[in-house]
C-alpha cells in the first residue's frame, strides 16, 4: 500500500484551484464564504481540507463539481481540471465529467440516496449514463463494485431501498457509486462523521484501498484531525472562508505555521492522553436501571407470519450517582439512544428505572411533569429536536414556561445567561431560528435548553459529534464546569472514545442491545477485557503522524447479530465476570 503513497510532487496536478472565491447575496448583504482558496491535487494523492464547521469546505468541493447552490456566485478564481477551467464549461460538458472523471461522496449518507429507488437502479444509472457497460455486464459491474466496498450479499442489496440499509452500509453504497467509473478524482465530504469508529476505520481503509487500486486522487474533507493524520498527504486548513495554511502532513503535525492550526491541534482530544483524575467520591445514586428491556414492534412479513420485534435494548442494568458521568459507547444501532429515550419515558420499556428513588414506569400527569424537571436529554439530532418555527429565545425558554418558572423578564435573562454559557452570546442569537445556525450551534442550543430547568441528571446523546474540535473542547469544558458547580450527573453517549475518556468517570460498552463491559474509565479504556472493547479502541484514529491503524483490525467485518426476533422471544441472559471491583465483563456464551 505504501508504495503508491509516494507523493509525486513533480507530476502535473490533476486539479488545481486558483484564487477561488464564493459569495452569497447581493450588494450590501453580500457574504463571502470562501476567499482566495488555492490548492492542487495530483494523481494518487490525498489532500485533506480541515477546518472548523462553516469554514467553506463543502462549498469549495461543490464548486469543483459545478454543483454550487443557485444563490452562490463565484466572483473570481479558476478550477483547472486537465487544464480546462471547469467554471467556464457548459453544463453539458460538466455532466459528462461528473460521476465519470470526478466522483463525490456527500456528507450525509442518510439523505443522499434517493429513498424511492432501489440501490441497484441508482448505481445502474451511473453505469448507463457514462456507457460503461450494458445489460448483464452492467449488473456485473455493479456487483463487482459492491464487493469492492465489502458489502456482503451484493445480489440482495441491489434490490433493497436505502432505508433498509444501516448508515454504514449506505455510506459504502455511496462510495461504490462514486467509484463506479473509476474517476480520476474522488471528493469525499466528511464521509465518516456520522459513523462510529469501527465503521469509520473500515471506510477509510476502503478509500485507501480503492485509491491504490485505481490511482485516484482523493480530496477529503473532515474536521477530525485523527482522520487527517490517518489519510492525508497534504493538508489545507481553512477558517472562516480563508486558508490558514497549506502544507505537507508532516509539517502540519510537527511544525504548523498558522496559529489557528496550532490551536486546532491543541484542542484535539487524544485517546489515552486524558490526565489521570482522582476518582471522586460520589453521592447518592440518582439513577438506577435494572434489567431494562426495550423492543420495537416490527411489521409482519405475511398474513400468517408471526409477529416480530426488534430488540433494541436487552437486559441492561447500571447505576448513576450524583456528580458522576457514565459514558456509553458502542457501534451505531447498538441501542445507546434507545436507552436514553427509555430514561426519558419516550418509549415503552420493561424493567425498572428509578430516578431519585421514583419508579418512572407508568408515571402520568403531574407526577410525570414533576419528574421531567429532574432529568433532561440532549438529543442526538439537534435539528430534528428543535421546532423549526420557534426562535431560539422561545425554544430555550420553553421548559421554563412549561413549568411556570419566573416572570417573563426573569425567563428572558435566564435564557440569555444559558446561551452565554454554551458560547452563543451574540445578541441576535435569541431572535434567530434553528435553520439559521450551523449544526454545532444547534447542538449547543439543545444543551442550553436541557440545562434550563437545572435538572439533576442530563442524558447527553452525542452532544459534540457535529462540532469541530475547538468548539467541542469548549462545550466539554462547559459540561465539566456545570457538573462541578451543580453536582450534575451525566449519562454521556458518544462514539468518540477520546471524548469519552476525557469526560467520563465510568464507561459502559454496548453491543447489540447489551452491555458487554462496564467499569471505571481506567478499567475499561486502559484494561479492556472484552474482545469487542479491544477492537473498538483499536479502531480509533490517532491524530498524530505515523500512527496508522493496523489494517487487520479494520478490515474485519463486525460480526452482525440478528436483532429481529419473534414477539416475546426470551434471550439467554448474559453473565458477567468481575476482574476487578466495579469492573464487569460479559462472558461469552
Amino acid at each position, binding site marked *: 500500500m505504501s508504495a503508491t503513497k509516494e507523493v509525486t510532487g513533480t507530476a502535473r496536478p490533476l486539479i488545481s484551484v486558483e484564487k477561488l472565491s464564493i459569495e452569497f447575496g447581493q450588494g450590501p448583504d453580500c457574504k463571502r464564504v470562501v476567499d482566495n482558496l488555492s490548492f492542487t491535487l495530483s494523481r494518487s494523492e490525498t489532500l485533506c481540507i480541515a477546518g472548523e464547521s462553516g469554514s467553506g469546505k463543502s462549498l469549495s468541493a461543490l464548486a469543483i*463539481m459545478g*454543483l454550487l447552490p443557485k444563490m452562490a456566485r463565484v466572483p473570481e478564481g479558476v478550477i483547472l481540471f486537465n487544464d480546462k477551467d471547469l467554471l467556464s464549461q457548459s*453544463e453539458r460538458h460538466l*455532466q*459528462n*465529467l*461528473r*460521476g*465519470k472523471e470526478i*466522483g*463525490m461522496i*456527500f456528507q*450525509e449518507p442518510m*439523505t*443522499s*440516496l*434517493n*429513498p*424511492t*429507488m432501489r440501490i441497484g437502479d441508482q448505481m445502474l*444509472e*451511473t453505469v448507463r*449514463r*457514462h456507457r460503461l457497460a450494458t445489460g448483464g455486464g452492467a449488473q456485473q459491474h455493479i456487483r463487482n463494485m459492491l464487493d469492492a466496498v465489502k458489502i456482503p450479499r451484493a445480489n440482495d442489496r441491489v434490490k433493497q*431501498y436505502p*432505508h433498509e440499509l444501516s448508515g454504514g452500509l449506505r455510506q459504502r453504497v*455511496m462510495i461504490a*457509486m*462514486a467509484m463506479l467509473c473509476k474517476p480520476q478524482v474522488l471528493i469525499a465530504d466528511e464521509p465518516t462523521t456520522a459513523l462510529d469508529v469501527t465503521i469509520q476505520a473500515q471506510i477509510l481503509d476502503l478509500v485507501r484501498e480503492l485509491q491504490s487500486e485505481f490511482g485516484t486522487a482523493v480530496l477529503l474533507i473532515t474536521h477530525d484531525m485523527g482522520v487527517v493524520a490517518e489519510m492525508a498527504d497534504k493538508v489545507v486548513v481553512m477558517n472562516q472562508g480563508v486558508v490558514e495554511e497549506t502544507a505537507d502532513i508532516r509539517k502540519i503535525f510537527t511544525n504548523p505555521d498558522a496559529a489557528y492550526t496550532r490551536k486546532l491541534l491543541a484542542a484535539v482530544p487524544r485517546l489515552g492522553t486524558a490526565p489521570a483524575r482522582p476518582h471522586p467520591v460520589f453521592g447518592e445514586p440518582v439513577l438506577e436501571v435494572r434489567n431494562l428491556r426495550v423492543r420495537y414492534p416490527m*411489521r*409482519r412479513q*405475511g*398474513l400468517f407470519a408471526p409477529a416480530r420485534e426488534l430488540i433494541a435494548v436487552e437486559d441492561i442494568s447500571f447505576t448513576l450517582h450524583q456528580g458522576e458521568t457514565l459514558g456509553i459507547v458502542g457501534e451505531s444501532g447498538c441501542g445507546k439512544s434507545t436507552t436514553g429515550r427509555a430514561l426519558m419515558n419516550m418509549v415503552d420499556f420493561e424493567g425498572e428505572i428509578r430516578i431519585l428513588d421514583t419508579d418512572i414506569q407508568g408515571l402520568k400527569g403531574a407526577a410525570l411533569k414533576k419528574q421531567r424537571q429532574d432529568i433532561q436529554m440532549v438529543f442526538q439530532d439537534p435539528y430534528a429536536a428543535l421546532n423549526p418555527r420557534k426562535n431560539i429565545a422561545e425554544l430555550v425558554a420553553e421548559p421554563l414556561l412549561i413549568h411556570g418558572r419566573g416572570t417573563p423578564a426573569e425567563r428572558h435573562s435566564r435564557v440569555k445567561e444559558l446561551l452565554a454559557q454554551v458560547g452563543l452570546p451574540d445578541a441576535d442569537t435569541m431572535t434567530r431560528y434553528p435553520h439559521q445556525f450551523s449544526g454545532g450551534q444547534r447542538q449547543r442550543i439543545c444543551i442550553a435548553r436541557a440545562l434550563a430547568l437545572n435538572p439533576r441528571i442530563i442524558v447527553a446523546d452525542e452532544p459534540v459529534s457535529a462540532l469541530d474540535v475547538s468548539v467541542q473542547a469548549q462545550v466539554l469544558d462547559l459540561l465539566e464546569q456545570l457538573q462541578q458547580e451543580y453536582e450534575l450527573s451525566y449519562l454521556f453517549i458518544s462514539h468518540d472514545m477520546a471524548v469519552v475518556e476525557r469526560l467520563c468517570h465510568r464507561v459502559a460498552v454496548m453491543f447489540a442491545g447489551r452491555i458487554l463491559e462496564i467499569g471505571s474509565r481506567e478499567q475499561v479504556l486502559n484494561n479492556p477485557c472484552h474482545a469487542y472493547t479491544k477492537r473498538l479502541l483499536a479502531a480509533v484514529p490517532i491524530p498524530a503522524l505515523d500512527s496508522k491503524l493496523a489494517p487487520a483490525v479494520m478490515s474485519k467485518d463486525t460480526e452482525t447479530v440478528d436483532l429481529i426476533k419473534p414477539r416475546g422471544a426470551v434471550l439467554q441472559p448474559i453473565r458477567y465476570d468481575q476482574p476487578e471491583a466495579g469492573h464487569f465483563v460479559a462472558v461469552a456464551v
Partner: protein
Amino acid sequence: MPMYILRRLGYAILILLGVSFITYLLLYMIPADPARQLAGRSATAETVANIRAQLGLDLPFYQQYFNYLTNLLQGDLGRSYIQRTEVSTLIMSRIRPTMELMAWGISFELIIGVSLGMLAALKRNTAIDRFLMALSFVGVSSPHFIASMLFLYLFAVNLDWFPLGGYGEFQHVLLPALTLGLLGSGWYSRMVRSSMIEVLQQDYIRTARAKGLTRARVLFRHVLPNAIIPVIPMIGIDIGIFIGGLVVVESVFGWPGLGQLAWQAIQRVDIPVIVGVTMVSAVAIVIANLIADLLVPLADPRIALDKS
C-alpha cells in the same frame, strides 16, 4: 398486506352501508310524494294510496330501508319512478361512458396539474410561476357549465377542432375530458409545486446530479417520483369533487354517462335513481381511496401499509 386489504374492504362495506342509510334517510325526509308523482294529476286519492302500498311507501322507515337493503343484496336497486325501468339497467347502460370520461378526465387532470406544477416549481418566484398559480385558481373557481360551454363554442363551433358533443370515438372524449382536466388540475398543480420545491432541496437530488445525469433524467427519474408521493392520496380526496364536475360536463357535452342520469334524477326527484347513483359513486370513491392508499407504499417504499 392481504390482511390490510381485507380490513379495508371490511371498512368499505361499512361505509357503503352508512352511505345507503344516510341517503335513504335524507330522501325519505324530502317533501315530495313519489306515489303522487306516479299516479299522475288525474288520480284519485285511492289510486295514490294503492300505488303507495305497492311501492311499500306506507311502511315505517326502518322497514322500507330494510327492504331496500335486502333487495340491494340481491342486486336489485329498485325501479325508477320516472323511467319505470330497473335502476340497475339504467346504471349499467351508463357506467361505461362515465368510466371512460373519468379515466381520461383524471388522467388529464394529473398530466396538466403535474406538468404545470413542475413548471411552476422550476420557475419559482418568477412571472411564469405566479401566472400558473393564478391560472390554477381561475381553474378551480370556474363554474363547470360556463367553462364547458366556452370550450365547446371556442374549440368545437368556431375552430372546429373537436366534434360538437357526442359519444363513441376518441375524439369525442377529448374535449370534455380536457375541460375536466383543466378545471380540476389547479389542486394538483399547487400540491406538485410545493412538493417539488421540497424535493429539489433534498440531498439526493444533488447526488443524482453529481452522477452526471442530465437535467431531464434528474427531473423525471429522481425529482418527479418523489414529488408525486403526496399527490397520490389527493386523487382519493379529489374524486368526490371530480364527480361533481362530471355531472355538469356530461350534460353539456351530451355524454351518456351517470352524471347526466344523476342530474336528471335530482331535478325530477327520482329517488330510486338518486339512491342508486349515490351508491355507485360511493363505491367509486371508496375504491379510488383504496387504490390511492395501496399506491402510496408502491410509490414510497418507506411507507408500510399497515402503519397508516
